[in-house]
């Protein structure tokens, strides 16, 4: 294993792209079905490079996401940290899984993220009365294989280790 080297900027750039995508306006029909880009990208990097992207980066990313979203500071930070923790535990197994099985895991992880986020949000006052907020986890699972291949291509192009 070589020393961690360069490319932090590339990882950061992919997170930025994720943040932008998470803010893109969508038509009303699709508003509920937005894939959780930031969570997906985080899962990929923690899985691929657990020694470089871990709980700390997840927390900082979460704070940024909170500021962008306008939610109470720390909501996304907490839920993203929890997700990163799960992936840190599971990454060896995740890497062995075929893509469809990874998608199932992503479904569960994003689902946990959504539940955490909305539970905490309802504690802090913003309530919703529909379970539709779980829909993004399904969409994210469907998006996962493509995102995985894309990010792996990025990683190989820039020799990120």
């Amino acid at each position, binding site marked *: 294993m070589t020393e961690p080297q360069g490319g932090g900027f590339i990882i950061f750039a992919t997170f*930025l792209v994720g943040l932008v995508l998470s*803010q893109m306006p*969508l038509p009303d029909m699709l*508003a509920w079905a937005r894939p959780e880009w930031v969570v997906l990208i985080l899962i990929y990097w923690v899985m691929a490079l657990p020694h470089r992207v871990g709980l700390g980066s997840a927390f900082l990313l979460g704070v940024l996401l909170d500021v962008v979203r306008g939610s109470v*500071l720390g909501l996304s930070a907490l839920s993203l940290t929890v997700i990163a923790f799960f992936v840190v535990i599971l990454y060896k197994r995740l890497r062995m899984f075929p893509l469809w099985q990874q998608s199932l895991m992503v479904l569960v992880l994003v689902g946990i993220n959504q539940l955490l986020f909305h539970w905490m949000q309802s504690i802090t*006052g*913003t309530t919703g*009365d529909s379970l539709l907020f779980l829909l993004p986890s399904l969409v994210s699972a469907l998006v996962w294989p493509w995102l995985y291949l894309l990010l792996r291509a990025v990683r190989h192009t820039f020799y990120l280790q």
Partner: protein
Amino acid sequence: MAADLHWPKMKEGRAWLSLLVTPLQWLVDIPTRVADGVSDVVVDRASLLRENEALKSEALVLERKVQQMAALTAENIRLRELLAAGDRLDPETRLVELIGVNPDPFQHEVILNQGSEDHVFDGQPVLDAGGVMGQVVSLAHYTSRVMLITDARSAIPVEVNRNGFRSVALGKGVMDELELEHVPDTVDIRAGDLLVTSGLGGRFPRGYPVGRVHEVIRDPGRPFTLVKAVPTARLDRSRHLLLVEYRSSADVEAVDD
């Protein structure tokens, strides 16, 4: 999280953090802006002429209304002087542009292109051509967030324009729906009534349209009448909004302290 909820100083910290992501919000807005620009450029002559025609006739109608307006305002001022009542201010407004929408479907918030550097303040009312949109709830240096009146957290004091009955219009978290709470069964209110801001609560100036009642459900099984209204502002379509330079007396005192 607790700090953000309970510690006012955090607002400042948040504003500084928001400064970091402001370029991101601009970036997100670029595609829409480009699309707008393109559709401005490639519009055909016939539709421009049609639009021009429509705008001219609209201007004519509005001008006619304004003619009466001057006379009515003068009359109103004279009557108020007779009554020795205080002046009704006509607060200044300024045009701002919307640069983003909160993607969370549970929160009805939009982001404006002006912030505390442009002297936007917390709680400032926001209007569009149709009526009240909402109020500013958080500030960054160059952007600000506006909570729309349909957000589940929003409540706005209103009165029925026809007879002055006062109530509070609550957002339900659903686009195009407001609800009046605790309306007694005997109140004279019916579908089609215009709701305007009552100026109570001191946040919104008086007399701007908020919504139109579209359904009144009098159910003997319920203690109160259920009144549903549709906002008159085009909450999900307006791109250009008006910020009202209106500070309630309570806010001014708070600033002076």
